[in-house]
């Protein structure tokens, strides 16, 4: 089925990379930022890893490619104090990552004046199981990019790269969400029970999430223990409910949690569901603009209470 028309031209990424390096060199040279958080090429073909560049010559390492999947906003949370200590920081963000950054600013984890944001016009990135020798196309693109509404970041200090005419990828997550919503509660319970029972409690999903910055997670506490820590059914169910609840109204939808999950648990379905409900209930969408109050940290006197007797 795939034709070249459904492929994104790799030359676009090369052009974005050149522009990105130029921008990074300039901000480091003129002292706009003490360090630039971006991506560098990984050892395996098509892979990339986070890079923190502090000297202008180092800007040459930076890249933007379909392998630049990481949400770098993670490096600006309080949990990563060693990065924050470097001074004023520049950070490279895709549209979806920008939502996380806006969320962190809204939660007073960051001050907008302390960061310089280099936005990337982003055609898409690889999915978790993509063959990275192939160009970005229907089979290799990440699920979140199929339904992306934020290809061009807004409210940034500078944008690099240009957006091509994007191929129309078939949406998947929205269809999967609709399929689940149409199930009976018992069917949904079976669905999630099966998925959650595979969870090995590695907490990769928590470590990669920009919003999981609590110094002590409720799920690690043992006096009293709220959530069993063993990777077994009851504790897993509780962990996933707590995770979804704590991210409700905050989650930026970057889908990093799902990408890093070694057990392929469809975590972003839960995130999306909560985002959808909070939008329906309170008209709130996470992270488009830094907002002081989230839907669960504010209220209106006339909020719906039809479920309360």
């Amino acid at each position: 089925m795939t034709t070249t028309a459904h492929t994104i031209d790799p030359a676009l990424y090369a052009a974005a990379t050149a522009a990105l390096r130029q921008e990074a060199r300039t901000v480091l040279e003129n002292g706009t930022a003490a360090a630039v958080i971006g991506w560098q090429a990984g050892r395996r073909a098509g892979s990339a890893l986070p890079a923190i560049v502090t000297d202008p010559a180092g800007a040459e390492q930076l890249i933007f490619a379909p392998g630049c999947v990481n949400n770098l906003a993670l490096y600006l949370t309080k949990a990563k104090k060693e990065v924050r200590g470097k001074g004023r920081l520049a950070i490279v963000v895709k549209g979806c990552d920008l939502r996380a950054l806006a969320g962190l600013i809204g939660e007073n984890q960051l001050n907008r004046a302390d960061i310089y944001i280099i936005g990337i016009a982003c055609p898409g990135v690889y999915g978790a199981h993509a063959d990275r020798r192939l160009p970005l196309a229907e089979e290799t693109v990440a699920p979140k990019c199929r339904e992306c509404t934020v290809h061009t970041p807004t409210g940034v200090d500078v944008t690099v790269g240009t957006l091509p005419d994007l191929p129309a990828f078939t949406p998947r997550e929205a269809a999967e969400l609709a399929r689940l919503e149409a199930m009976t509660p018992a069917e949904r319970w079976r669905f999630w029970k099966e998925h959650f029972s595979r969870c090995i409690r590695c907490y990769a999903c928590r470590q990669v999430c920009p919003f999981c910055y609590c110094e002590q997670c409720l799920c690690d506490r043992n006096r009293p223990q709220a959530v069993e820590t063993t990777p077994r059914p009851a504790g897993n169910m509780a962990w996933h409910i707590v995770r979804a609840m704590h991210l409700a109204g905050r989650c930026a939808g970057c889908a990093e949690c799902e990408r890093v999950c070694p057990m392929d648990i469809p975590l972003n379905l839960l995130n999306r569901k909560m985002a959808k409900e909070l939008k329906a209930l309170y008209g709130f969408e996470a992270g488009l603009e830094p907002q002081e109050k989230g839907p669960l940290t504010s209220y209106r006197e006339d909020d719906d209470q039809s479920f309360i007797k």
Partner: protein
Amino acid sequence: MHAEKQQHAFEPKIVAFVCTWCTYAGADLAGTSRLQYPANIRVVKFPCTGRIDPVFILRAFQKGADGVLVSGCHPGDCHYMAGNFHARRRFAAFRQLLDFIGVDLNRLQFSWVSAAEGGKWVDVATELTERVRELGPLREFAALEAEEHWSGALATPELQEAYNSI
């Protein structure tokens, strides 16, 4: 003897998380007014509905509650001004989450009961108890717990039978 035990009518266990200022006082009023309500309800008192973490509800279900009631002051009557407004949003979201995971929302009731509403407390408590009695025991969470302890071997008929007779 075992057979006899199994024939016992199902009595739901219901945990009620209530705020101390309104609903607890309302339940107390029901008591001092000699109003009758089902003995299935176990009341746990909190300073405010705003202090009731959704994880408590989860914990109650996991530890054997068949139904959960959360009750506090009417909007505008909160002792801490806005605790119940915040709780209202949190519980609205939590209900959607539980529903999406597949928990029957008929087992979870929220209500506003003031210190003067002993009668309303009796109504809410009775209604929920009756509804959960109809639904029967909450098996889902118990099954997860059992798998936790019995390594998922519930699939064998012997264990399933032993489990059912508990």
